[in-house]
């Protein structure tokens, strides 16, 4: 019998058994989903973004379904980094799945606080820096929308932590390679993209926005082509940098698009809401594709989209 293809990947020096991970905010810390999913089959759990203090999140309605997607303004409701360290992380460690901790804040100081709390945390193999947060020190502009703000957050977190850092980028910018470059110059080892696409929906009967937060982030298959293009752009600019690609991946065919565009790993987000088992199905589908195509090593497919010139 032929040897089964190797699904394991090297992500900024971390060995993961599968290229399939969860997208932050779309899997909580894995406990609820573990009723449906064998967490041992996925590469890593990227947990919901944690902040210095608990955040209450935004009022409701927090979500509006739009064609092939959903618009949300949750407001990063979470119990804070201390709760993560004392409750969620020990549980994840007992399960034995690698953890990528996602951190967020409204000031550089808040990011530093969370990063320092995470220093040496067992089982945390990498940290993803969610810089799609309003920057209170810059008129609420998102950190990820400005190369300078991106640089300052990443540099500060870099000083606090030794594990590989992934900067999670927003697609709502003119030049993704410029922001990615700023993150990489300041100590990020990898790039996660994309975060949600900013959007808005209005109830024409009441004249009110459908979200209490007025505007929100669009996710789901509606944004997939934007995400594939984003991965392609960043991979072309930085071909040696690991990329976690995400945005509307519903099945393994979608995931393979990201890998051919240049993703090292793929993250499943909104699809977890619809089918809690999407991660393992994508994992199995990629394996099947590799068998059919006679590909032994996933890394050999990365960025191999056939583009002239």
């Amino acid at each position, binding site marked *: 019998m032929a040897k089964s293809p190797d699904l394991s990947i090297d992500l900024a020096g971390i060995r993961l058994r599968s290229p399939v991970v969860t997208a932050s*905010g*779309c*899997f*909580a810390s894995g406990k*609820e*989903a573990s*009723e*449906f999913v064998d967490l041992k089959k996925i590469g890593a759990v990227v947990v919901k973004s944690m902040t210095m203090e608990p955040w*209450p*999140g*935004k*009022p*409701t*309605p*927090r*979500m*509006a*379904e739009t*064609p*092939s*997607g*959903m618009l*949300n303004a*949750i407001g990063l*409701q979470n119990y804070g980094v201390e709760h993560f360290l004392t409750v969620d992380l020990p549980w994840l460690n007992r399960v034995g799945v690698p953890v990528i901790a996602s951190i967020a804040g409204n000031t550089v100081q808040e990011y530093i606080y969370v990063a320092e709390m995470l220093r040496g945390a067992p089982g945390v193999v990498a940290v993803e820096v969610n810089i799609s947060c309003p920057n209170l020190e810059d008129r609420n502009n998102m950190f990820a929308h400005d190369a300078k703000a991106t640089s300052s957050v990443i540099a500060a977190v870099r000083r606090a932590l030794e594990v590989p850092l992934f900067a999670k980028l927003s697609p709502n910018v003119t030049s993704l390679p410029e922001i990615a470059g700023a993150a990489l110059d300041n100590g990020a080892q990898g790039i996660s993209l994309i975060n949600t696409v900013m959007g808005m929906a209005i*109830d024409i009967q*009441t004249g*009110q926005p*459908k979200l*209490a*937060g007025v505007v929100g982030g669009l996710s*789901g*298959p509606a944004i997939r082509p934007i995400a594939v293009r984003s991965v392609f752009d960043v991979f072309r600019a930085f071909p040696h940098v690991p990329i976690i690609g995400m945005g509307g991946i*519903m099945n393994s065919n979608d995931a393979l698009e990201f890998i051919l565009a240049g993703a090292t790993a793929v993250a499943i987000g*909104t699809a*977890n*809401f*619809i*089918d*809690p*088992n999407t991660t393992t199905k994508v994992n199995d589908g990629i394996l099947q594709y590799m068998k059919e195509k006679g590909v032994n090593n996933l890394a050999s497919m990365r960025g191999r989209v056939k583009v002239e010139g």
Partner: protein
Amino acid sequence: MIQQQAQILSYKKLRDDYFLLTIVAPEIAETAKPGQFVNIRPPADRQFILRRPFSIYKVNRRGEWAATIEVVFDIRGGGTAALASLRAHDMIDIVGPIGRPFAIPKNRNSCLLVGGGIGAVPLFYLAEELKGAGKRVDVLWGAQTASKLLNPIDAKRFGAQAVFTTEDGSEGVKGRVTDVMDDLLEKCGTEVIYACGPNGMLEAVTRIGQKHRIPVQVAMEALMGCGYGICMTCVQPVWNKSHDQIVHVRTCVDGPVFNGARIAWDAFASDPGVRVAPAGN
């Protein structure tokens, strides 16, 4: 909570506005309790990707074929319209049973069930369980108009008292459920109130219950992203135990049944950002 592919046993239109699906789902039926819900994925459609949550209307563990559950819904948009197109033998992807069910206190024997429009759905299964436990069950259904009263024939059958109110007076008492509640609580010697319906009704029923010192359990509706506790879409404003702080609590796995006294009803009205979730689709 499990996810399974389940077969539709039958489809039925109830009165003018409601649809009933009977679903063969033995594992879900086996453990489902009143107040819990199932989350159904609309048939393959590119536009509507999220599941829709539905209260469990009835459970039949000794069906002709296998155990079934029933859900009732109205059409609110494309997703529910797609569900209304399902027929016998079609397969659906279903997750359930989900959420905290109604509590059935041992020492309270006289139960009033208050249902607003389609909100009466989970109270049918509850009534059956309460009757099985030897409790007195009284029924108070309210709706805009007669055609929106859910299955009044069955309600009359299991209610020691069965009172209906319609805002247009087309059936029963003209007015709202809250107009007749004071009298009904006295007459029935009510010891616990169970309510499901629009938020405004649940708030008013909770306040009347508090006035009479009768506990009120409310089953709340919310827009949901995932329906199993991960997305934080469906939160309700709930007072903490010391009643000095409002926290956002998930409807799906921490509800949908809440102690009415713990819901921060004023948060819906006083905070301009907080609005009752609009009808789903």
